[in-house]
């Protein structure tokens, strides 16, 4: 198991180097210039432009800039934001818990609904329930997030007035950030009202963000269950005289989970990507919204730093998935 982990960790290194190159190059490939954007419509003199460019280090060669970036990265320094002048790492870390909280709730929503739905669809194969689950999940998968979010806001927030339109918590509460998770912090503060309010604000964005993963998980669970249901050992389990509940939930699901866990791991990357849209729709103060702002201002250090950090997180999550995979599947472990 230890060796397995070491190998997996070693495999991350080239991926990570690739990510730094892409992140560095990506923002510089976009047309536009941070200095010109800052100068605004009135423009800027050529001397002042050159001065600022030198100050920001953009006058050096791209290769030199890249190695500066890489050197800083190894020291945990992602540079300062061109806009706020505070360290990118601090900016990221202050917003990341909001995104993480939203993503975790979205993922929980997707798994808690998607997994049972997939199992039921597989067990009731070809019946109305199966067609319903598969039809709904295909619809969910095909919907653009921003459109789906706006629809839900129109229905639940504007028309019915059930949920708030944007933000993380009602302005009536102020919660001292400890973990950065509004739900946990409000519980730590012992404020039930704040906790419920934070859930209230969380529910709609989490549903919007979780819809696509939900559809993917439901479909993957169904097909994986169907495959395992045809296996000889499921027949053996039934020949033992076990209840169908036990045959399905223990003997079938356990094996079907192996591929479902992989898919769930892949969804984490998509969740962080989807968070950018969802956070923009709901004005959720997380990294998604921050990245969009940074991109539109051509804030090179923030964008490349943010991308590298997000990629790093996705890589770590996939490592965790690989470990979980080993735990579920004894054929990998031994």
């Amino acid at each position, binding site marked *: 198991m230890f060796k397995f982990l070491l190998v997996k960790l070693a495999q991350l290194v080239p991926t990570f180097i690739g990510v730094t190159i892409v992140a560095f190059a990506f923002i510089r490939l976009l047309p536009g210039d941070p200095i010109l954007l800052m100068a605004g419509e009135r423009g800027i003199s050529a001397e002042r432009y050159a001065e600022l460019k030198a100050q920001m280090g953009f006058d050096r060669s791209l290769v030199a800039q890249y190695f500066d970036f890489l050197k800083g990265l190894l020291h945990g320094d992602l540079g300062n934001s061109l806009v706020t002048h505070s360290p990118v790492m601090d900016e990221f870390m202050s917003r990341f818990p909001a995104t993480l909280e939203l993503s975790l709730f979205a993922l929980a929503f997707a798994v808690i609904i998607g997994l049972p739905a997939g199992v039921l669809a597989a067990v009731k194969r070809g019946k109305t329930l199966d067609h319903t689950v598969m039809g709904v999940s295909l619809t969910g998968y095909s919907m653009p997030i921003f459109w789906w979010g706006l629809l839900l806001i129109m229905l639940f927030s504007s028309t019915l007035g059930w949920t708030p339109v944007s933000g993380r918590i009602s302005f009536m509460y102020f919660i001292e950030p400890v973990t950065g998770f509004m739900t946990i912090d409000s519980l730590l503060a012992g404020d039930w009202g704040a906790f419920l309010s934070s859930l209230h604000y969380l529910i709609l964005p989490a549903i919007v963000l979780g819809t696509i993963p939900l559809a993917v998980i439901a479909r993957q669970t169904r097909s994986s269950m169907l495959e395992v249901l045809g*296996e*000889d*050992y499921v*027949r*053996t*389990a*039934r*020949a*033992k*005289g*076990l*209840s*169908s509940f036990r045959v399905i939930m223990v*003997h079938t699901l*356990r*094996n079907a989970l192996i591929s479902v866990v992989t898919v769930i791991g892949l969804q984490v990357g998509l969740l962080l990507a989807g968070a950018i849209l969802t956070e923009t729709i709901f004005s959720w103060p997380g990294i998604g919204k921050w990245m969009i702002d940074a991109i539109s201002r051509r804030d090179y250090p923030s964008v490349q730093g943010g991308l590298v950090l997000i990629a790093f997180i996705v890589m770590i999550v996939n490592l965790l998935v690989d470990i979980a995979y080993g735990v*579920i*599947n*004894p*054929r990998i472990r*031994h």
Partner: protein
Amino acid sequence: MALLDIEGLSVRFQTSSGLFAAVEGVNINVDRGEVWSIVGESGSGKSVSMLATMGLLPWTAQVTADKMAFDGQDLQQLSSRQRRRIVGGEMSMIFQEPMSSLNPCFTVGTQIDEMIKQHLGGSRKERHERALDLLAQVGIPDPARRIKAYPHQLSGGMSQRVMIAMAISCNPRLLIADEPTTALDVTIQAQILELLLRLQEDTGMALILITHDMGVVAETAKHVVVQYAGRQVEKQDVKSLFANPRHPYTEALLSALPERAGDQDRLPTIPGVVPGQHDRPTGCLFNPRCRYATEHCREVEPVAAPDDPARTLCHYPLEDGISPSPAAAGVARDNPQSSPHREVRP
């Protein structure tokens, strides 16, 4: 009263091109402690009829029978809960592919324990002891270590031994073995068969052995059912079956045994294959491959004569190795099978 009493068992599958009768008119009545064998080529519906008895067929299968009783209990009338008490506990089954019949996610011990817990109960320690006992009983060396093994760490023969340990863990009164040696090495095959017969003798359980190997039948069974294309064509005790096969199909199967082929250069074979869903002939299902078939056989489906104890599904059942069929006259002279070459005897 027979332990397993099955009359007129039929299994039909709902397919895209309508109902397909995989099994029709199978009768078996196994008494306590008897060893039965079901033989036939692949596609004869041997496994399907036993899976139907166990209630293990997918929902697309429609199982009907005039009578299907285990120890006097009508299996068709039982609730699924009552039936699960019999399946696994009193009547258990092992399968053709031992490697894929064990769940890869659980250890051998867990899988045996689950079965004991379901039917016998007992404390965790008692169950563990019993599992160790069983593993030793089926000839697994070092049971204390093997009990913690995962199926992928076992060979095919070991897996089949584990399957057998599991199947006998709750002292079943009937064990159904569905081609238990087909997927194994020849050397292991004999060991597994020996093990099954020893366990059968020790415990006094009844055994139904599904096989396509007439040699295995000769060595093991007391009673034999011969199936062809889902139909039961003949049912006899093994001695008279080998001495006087009634159905031409049985005769052809026997004559394909190397021991009975005598000094011929080539083993006799049965030309053609078992008809599938789409190429079933009219009349007798065996007629395209039968050396004695007549126009009558090609047109009219045979029924077993009511006074025939073997219930032979043939218009012209063989009498002492000689077919009364008019078509037999032509083949009788160059027919080595009907000569009394019978080296293989039960």
